[in-house]
């Protein structure tokens, strides 16, 4: 029983690194869009969708780990962050796409940067 957790847990760090990289890529793309004063493109939307899928995978892995293994020290905080990171991107994309100007791209950039920060915080809380 005990040795199942480390094996599955080994997935979490690479997944978090990938999540961080994809969200920062989305942030950079959106920032460039905002500076060039264009509205968000379909490619950005696709990348955001990929990011959300990765976030959901991470959430499922984390929940499985919490159920079968020892949960993180501050479980409530961890679950709070998990819920926030799952919901943040869809809400941010919805809010950003409603504005057909550079500011929509600005909203996407902020959403993506916040997602990257949340990934980092989740990782810290998990390992505390």
């Amino acid at each position: 029983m005990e040795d199942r957790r480390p094996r599955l847990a080994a997935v979490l760090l690479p997944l978090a690194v990938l999540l961080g990289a994809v969200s920062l890529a989305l942030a950079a793309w959106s920032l460039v869009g905002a500076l060039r004063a264009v509205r968000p493109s379909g490619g950005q939307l696709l990348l955001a969708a990929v990011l959300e899928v990765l976030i959901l995978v991470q959430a499922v892995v984390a929940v499985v780990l919490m159920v079968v293994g020892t949960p993180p020290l501050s479980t409530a905080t961890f679950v709070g962050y998990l819920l926030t990171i799952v919901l943040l991107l869809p809400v941010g994309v919805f809010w950003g796409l409603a504005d057909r100007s550079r500011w929509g791209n600005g909203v996407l950039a902020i959403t993506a940067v916040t997602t990257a920060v949340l990934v980092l915080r989740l990782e810290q809380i998990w390992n505390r």
Partner: protein
Amino acid sequence: MSPTSGRPAGPPSDLRPALRSGPGRLLVAVYGVFAISASARAGVQIVTSFSVAPLAYLLSALAAAVYVVATVALVRSSERSRRVALVSVTTELVGVLAVGALSVGDPQAFPDETVWSGFGAGYGYVPLVLPVLGLWWLCSQRPRRPV
């Protein structure tokens, strides 16, 4: 029917979607993020360990309330909510400056972090810059009254 002849009571004449479009849309996004993170932080602090630092945690709750009110007011985007936002953003600026100064000058009073301690250093000083941008935006959206 001259639009300046009288202001009909009710929200339709008050609606100013401009407050939440353009730069306002960006502000709503940042305020929304801070509303969520400050509320969650204050909630966890107060529920799990209120007695450790009551002052800091109550200030966390105040900060959270200020961010929530500002976010909702910006989203509502009416002239009345613009004034509500003005009050909450001003409170935010005073709060971040006061708590920032106190936490640096008298760290004993703040055994635990709040969003505003160290002038928001834990949040990349965004809490310090945000109210300034907010005040600029809200003042730039002041309606021009017909003379």
